[in-house]
């Protein structure tokens, strides 16, 4: 578990380091996700060495964003002023996204 955590945080740190030095407009953790995938593919890192930590983190992923959800209370009035346009835009966009994504696979799938 300790080794697995070291790998996960190591790749997170590497991602942050690269965005810090090269000032690329992508978050360090997203870069870390990409890099750990590549490292696993190239067999630089073994799956069994990272899996204990990654499984636990994914299992509780939803718990970790609760504080941001609670933070919405600070902006409640802002949202309340625009709830109609926000709902229309977000629902319409979600339905279109669902359909476009699905129809591509539906038509081309083998």
């Amino acid at each position: 578990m300790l080794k697995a955590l070291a790998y996960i945080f190591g790749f997170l740190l590497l991602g942050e380091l690269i965005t810090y030095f090269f000032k690329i407009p992508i978050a360090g953790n997203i870069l870390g996700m990409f890099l750990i995938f590549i490292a696993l593919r190239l067999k630089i890192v073994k799956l069994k060495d990272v899996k204990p930590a990654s499984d636990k983190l994914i299992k509780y992923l939803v718990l970790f964003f609760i504080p941001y959800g609670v933070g919405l209370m600070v902006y409640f009035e802002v949202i309340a002023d625009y709830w109609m346009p926000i709902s229309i835009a977000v629902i319409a966009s979600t339905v279109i996204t669902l359909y476009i994504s699905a129809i591509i696979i539906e038509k081309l799938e083998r």
Partner: protein
Amino acid sequence: MHEFFQLPVFGVFISIIAFAGGREIRKKFNYVLLNPVLLAILFIISFLLIFKIDFEDYNRGGKFISFFLGPSVVALGVFFYEKYEAVKQNLKIFLFSVLIGGISGVLTVIVFLLLLKVPDFIVESLAAKSVTTPIAIEITKLTGGIPEITAGIVIAVGIFGNAFGPFILKKLGIKSKIAIGAALGIAAHGIGTARAFEESKLAGVYGGLAMCVNGIITALVTPYLLQLFL
């Protein structure tokens, strides 16, 4: 009493028990709007309002919880490696679907919000509304929106996709289960993917992989698309 609630342990404790309680309620009444995260958030907000506790005080502890979003995103890369064999057969079609679906998710919401004359900071906060919350939060931090608004709407989008996604897609004539799975992951991230697993295991795996890939695509295109329109 005010100082007591400023102790980080308060924010950590209430987050954990609210989430555990939300999961118990979901187990008892299997109803989609009883999403554990939604229940936990509503419970904590009510508690803070009733006892007149500032969000900043709660967040002294909350920060310790949300810190783990960073490593969790890295963990998604491991998940992707583990499961990507499943999409190999349809890899090109899958990636094409995520690319086009992901870009339309960002593009359409920006255009609709601008047509409805919503202020720029809301557009910036909602551009990444289709991707998993930790990635959406990071994107919003870069684009200058408000991460808390992003988190709230992203969770709502997930619940919408989870509750109505398969129904809407079937009404629109989609029959393929993996198409439904991928679409749920692209448009409604992890909460939508949870519903994809109810369609079939493979649909769920497609959903999870689509969520990871769309996280990267959306992170790459959102800043540029926003620049184009704002």
